[in-house]
């Protein structure tokens, strides 16, 4: 059984990637998960320098999901390379680094710094964080901004560049196309949905930042739709995510058109979910006689159904 997937120049041993911001810098989970058993580990969004993020409360649970407004707290790319990357490498993790920037130049600079480091497998361009005004979402909500930042970063790095798209736009597939045209090696989607919850007793927003990003199973049907639409629009590989809780959900994204998947919120609910998903995918492949997971990508059957009265 072949679980490996190709994301452009990058080959992953399986399609399961830990989603950015939901797995710390990976090492936090070193005791719970064998990091080398994952297809990849996408680390928390990094700017050039450290950031403290928003004050708490930073998360709140909503029906079938959660809002977060962490505000991209992070240690900055230099400390990441010095303090975390060596151990990630040692543990055999395939490391995708999620990068952020206030300006196009910052993206370029972070990408350049990472390109010189040892042990980075790919760069995920976070142009879709809904929680901070200057976190790149201005690029992610404009077709030309998306095009510009992808091509600028491509110019300075040999690493695969994977822009992460926002779902908070009319047509994510148009952004997928812009990314593909700009030379992206793959795309990731979705980031979280801009959302809000208010405590009616105090009339205050439940998050210090007023708004936050919705993740978890609640968003899955919208995310699946977006992956399906993008699969119809572009040829480059797609990393799908949004509310994957188990193997069946991961397979739903793959069938919709995702070459690989990321899992975020589910890891909070169950940090041992990784093995369960991989086992479930293998079971499914055995049951359905599928030799290579890559053969399942984008195989939604839309032929008309037979119907009875």
């Amino acid at each position, binding site marked *: 059984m072949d679980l490996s997937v190709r994301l452009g120049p990058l080959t992953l041993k399986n399609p399961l990637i830990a989603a950015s*911001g*939901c*797995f*710390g810098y990976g090492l*936090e*989970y070193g*005791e*719970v998960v064998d990091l080398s058993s994952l297809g990849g580990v996408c680390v*928390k969004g990094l700017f050039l320098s450290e950031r*403290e*993020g928003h004050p*708490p*409360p*930073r*998360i*709140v*649970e909503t*029906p*079938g*999901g*959660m809002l*977060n407004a*962490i505000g991209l*707290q992070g240690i900055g790319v230099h400390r990441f390379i010095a303090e975390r990357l060596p151990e990630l490498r040692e543990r055999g993790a395939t490391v995708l680094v999620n990068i952020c920037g206030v300006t196009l130049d910052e993206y370029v600079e972070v990408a350049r710094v990472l390109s010189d480091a040892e042990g980075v497998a790919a760069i995920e361009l976070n142009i879709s964080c809904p929680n901070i005004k200057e976190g790149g979402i201005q690029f992610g909500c404009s077709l030309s901004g998306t095009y510009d930042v992808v091509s600028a970063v491509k110019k300075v790095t040999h690493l695969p560049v994977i822009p992460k798209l926002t779902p908070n736009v009319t047509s994510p597939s148009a952004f997928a196309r812009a990314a593909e045209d700009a030379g992206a090696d793959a795309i990731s989607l979705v980031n979280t949905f801009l959302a809000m919850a208010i405590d009616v007793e105090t009339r205050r927003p439940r998050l210090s930042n007023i708004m936050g990003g919705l993740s*978890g*199973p609640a968003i899955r049907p919208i995310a699946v739709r977006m992956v399906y639409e993008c699969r119809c629009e572009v040829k480059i590989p797609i990393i799908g995510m949004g509310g994957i*809780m188990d193997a069946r959900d991961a397979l739903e994204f793959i069938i919709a058109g995702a070459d690989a998947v990321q899992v975020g*919120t589910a*890891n*909070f*609910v*169950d*940090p*041992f979910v990784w093995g369960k998903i991989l086992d479930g995918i293998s079971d499914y492949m055995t049951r359905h006689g599928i030799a290579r997971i890559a053969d399942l990508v984008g195989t939604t059957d839309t032929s008309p159904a037979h119907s009875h009265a």
Partner: protein
Amino acid sequence: MPFDIDARVIENRRLSSDYNVLSLEAPDIAGATEPGQFVMVKPDRGIDPLLRRPFSVFEILRDGGRPVGLSILSKRVGVTTGQIFGAQAGQRVQCLGPLGRAFTLPGPATEVWMVAGGVGLAPFWTVAEALAGRGVTLTLFYGGRGDADLLYLDYFERLGVTLAVCTEDGSRGERGRVTIPLERALAARQAGTDVLVHACGPDPMLAAVARLAARYGCRCEVSVERVMGCGLGGCYSCVVPVKAANGGFHHVRSCISGPIFDAATLVWD
């Protein structure tokens, strides 16, 4: 190394209409837990609610000395604590732990003063059990709204813990905040008595205890309570501000750098 156990409910002791103690069969977690650590609990599979909730380990349950389970002391405030209150023996509860840092446990040369507000009593049963065994002199300053909020006093008495109890409505012990007897005791402390203060309770209480400890020159550790998404350092939801070298602060994850902190390192505003 935390364990995730699909733990069988051994017993659900209802203490009042809001408080209960849920005993869970979880030998691996029980055997590894140190006083002050917590577990992430999910009584109901499925998405309602979605996330686990943090609870201090209350008791370590033993069978002839061998740890077989743990209990949590829960106050009903919302969905999960409602499910915990309603749980039935035999039911399964997902329980992940032990997590976080423990309280410092000194030797007999140091007195330990535990300061608990309401359900903040939870981590102190294991502290008291461990330290009573070492011959450490223990005092529990314990405050609640009223009589009904003061739980398990006899357990602590049996371990030889000195009790200083107060209630806001005066229905038991001294009337007023727990910081009143604490300050009195700090002021009356004999020179040369080394005291370590351990506190757990609502933020304003912790801030007041931290201030008193600093004023009277005692070391103080607090257990802070933040909304926690994961308990393992993955989500960055649970941060507290710790003092930074430059006079500012850093946000630090209380699930892995805490929940127990040296009170002097935190920014209290």
